[in-house]
């Protein structure tokens, strides 16, 4: 079975919520929309205090090309435009909306009838990308890179295939899995739309084989759709990484940055993104909700919730049986790449794929011991780096050395830290090195 070639680990899967169907979360009393829900320039608010908004009303426009607009997911009144604590742990600009009723903007098709690509022959690539851009769609796997940027290849690059990332290699998370089981046809139309947008006729959907039901269902539904292939993959973390997925599915390696997947002819989109693209293009619905897995060993009812953006995490936890008493750490995202939250008043954003409640015992990190030079981190690194070395260089502020050893290639998957028998905080330090070196490279480019 296919998988990527170097490195990788296999953490315990713990997919507790795999059998729990998606259910709709209740509307929040107040929704908070961070202006930083995507990578790139922050969105610029276009509403002010006192404005009436409906579901789908534009709240903020894109702040540049690499940016995305933000729409209201609720109807009500804008109560303020002010800073709010978000999942990144910092206070940043946000729009607060007090919820009243649930009124939708005209033109959004809320019916569940499937609209096929053949029903809308007038759609061309340009229109599709434009619609995606205006709907504020970003990468829903968690990286939140504005979708339309990926679908507009830079000059000189030609896309050859589209790969849908349905790997969901993070332990605990099941949002993508449930989405495939419940909306397979919509995902396939979404994929066709992406293929049309970038002008290719080959599409893959990569699924890890710990989801046999999804593989079976998707294969069945994809029958008759020419050019679409379902690729079962061996279970290995971090297969959901863009570069790892390209290696696993089409066997090509993306060179070190600044090269991007399009340089090897691949466009990768998350399965949730494909679904959102379907809704945006065929149903005129901007990105206002998403599926989030609320899970954890002590959670009463691990669930997959369809929740409106801006809903506070506290409410989502309440919907799943409340906060367990022995909670030691709450992570936004999965256990490998997610980020611990400082507060539960934090609102859900476009990139919130999961909410993991760890109990006291799991939450505590073990005491770091000296490095025993076993090089397990080197064999685990999916990018072929030397994590022990990079971490040391970062700790000693040897930025030149870190740059020479390709610290910017690090995808921050955490495989090194996971595998380290001495519990060394390798990724913690490497991240410092990566950010600093990237800053140095940027300022060097600016000075030129």
């Amino acid at each position, binding site marked *: 079975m296919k998988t990527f070639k170097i490195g990788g680990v296999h953490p315990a899967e713990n997919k507790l919520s795999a059998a729990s169907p998606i259910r709709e979360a209740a509307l929040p009393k107040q929704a908070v929309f961070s202006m930083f829900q995507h990578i790139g320039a922050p969105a610029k608010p276009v509403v002010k205090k006192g404005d009436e908004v409906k579901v789908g009303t534009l709240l903020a426009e894109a702040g540049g090309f690499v940016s995305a607009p933000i729409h209201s997911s609720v109807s009500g009144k804008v109560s303020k435009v002010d*800073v709010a604590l978000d999942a990144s*742990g910092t206070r940043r600009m946000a729009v607060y909306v007090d919820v009243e009723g649930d009124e939708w903007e005209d033109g959004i098709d809320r019916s569940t009838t499937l609209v096929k690509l053949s029903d809308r022959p007038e759609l061309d690539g340009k229109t599709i990308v434009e619609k995606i851009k205006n709907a504020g769609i970003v990468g829903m796997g968690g990286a939140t890179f504005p979708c339309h940027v990926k679908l507009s290849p830079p000059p000189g690059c030609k896309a050859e295939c589209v790969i849908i990332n349905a790997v969901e290699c993070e332990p605990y998370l099941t949002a993508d899995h449930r989405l495939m089981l419940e909306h397979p046809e919509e995902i396939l139309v979404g994929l066709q739309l992406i293929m049309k947008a970038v002008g290719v006729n080959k599409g893959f959907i990569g699924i890890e084989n710990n989801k046999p039901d999804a593989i079976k269902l998707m294969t069945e539904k994809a029958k008759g759709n020419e050019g679409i292939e379902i690729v079962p993959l061996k279970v290995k973390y971090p297969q959901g990484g863009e570069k790892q997925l390209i290696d696993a599915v089409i066997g090509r390696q993306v060179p070190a940055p600044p090269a991007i997947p399009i340089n090897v002819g691949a466009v990768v989109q998350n399965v949730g993104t494909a679904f959102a693209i379907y809704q945006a293009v065929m149903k005129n619905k901007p990105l206002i909700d998403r599926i989030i897995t609320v899970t954890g060993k002590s959670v009463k009812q691990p669930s997959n919730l369809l929740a409106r953006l801006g809903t506070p995490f506290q409410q989502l936890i309440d919907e799943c049986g409340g906060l367990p008493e022995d909670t030691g750490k709450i992570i936004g995202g999965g256990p490998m790449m997610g*980020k611990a939250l400082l507060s539960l008043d934090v609102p859900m954003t476009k990139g919130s794929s999961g909410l993991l409640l760890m109990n006291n015992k799991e939450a505590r990190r073990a005491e770091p011991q000296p490095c025993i030079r076993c090089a397990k981190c080197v064999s685990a690194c999916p990018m072929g780096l030397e994590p022990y070395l990079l971490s040391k260089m970062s700790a000693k502020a040897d930025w030149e050395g870190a740059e020479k050893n390709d610290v910017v290639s690090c995808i921050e998957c955490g495989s090194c830290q996971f595998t380290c028998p001495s519990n060394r*905080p390798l990724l913690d*330090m490497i991240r410092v090195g990566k950010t600093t070196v990237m800053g140095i490279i940027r300022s060097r480019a600016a000075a030129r």
Partner: protein
Amino acid sequence: MVNVILIAVCVLGLIGLASAVILYVVSHKFAVHEDPRIAKVGAVLPQANCGGCGYPGCSGFAAACVKAADGGSLEGKLCPVGGQPVMEQVADILGLSVAAAAPKVAVVRCNGTCENRPRLAQFDGAQSCRVQQMTGMGETGCGYGCLGCGDCVAKCQFDALHMNPETGLPEVDEEKCTACGACAKACPRGIIEIRLKGPKGRRVVVLCNNKDKGAIANKACKASCIGCGKCVKTCEKFEAITLENNLAYIDAEKCKMCRKCEEACPKGAIHGFNFPPKKEKSEEVKQEVGS
């Protein structure tokens, strides 16, 4: 047997002599000319190689001084570690005079002690301020205050900074601090300021770095500056205090050390250093504020 030893000694001696001649000739022929004053200046510098002067190490600073002296002035050149005495020696060597430089000291502009600033979360990653900074706000509700992992302490070459386990904040040993600025650069939040030491070491400083709006800053820490601007009003006459981004800042050059701002601050964020004990009246005022 004796013969063998003699031959060996002679051969080695000859090789040594020949090498010495070659080395002598080469060292003269290919000598790199360096201004002899650079070595002389280097000899009086502290050789801490801390980079506090802004040059790469003491030799770099010595070369820069000599170059500046050729230009006729040593203005702007200061070895913060050696301070005035060393700069006078340097000036002597270069045949110049040097203007008196006011001594400086590192000031930790945060008073978010464990008592003043409650911990809301526990950080269990790598014990480094730079790492903790990447998690966002850190352990407390203040996104600007001391993170307490001691990156600054690790950087200090002069043993002048120490963590106080009770307050969780670094403390500056003014006797040892040379104002090289290594700690200020190490702090990811820019809390440490290299500031004029002031007459008799006296100075008045806003011990806060919080740029959040008053309500948020107030909630995060008992000793935070809330940007109310009362201090600015009391200092209207001297215009030493400015308020920017909800944070007051006292210009050390303009400050007249009247300490009225200290009394006016409702949060006790302004502190006077090294002043003689206050008279009773002002102490009462401070206690009221503190309670």
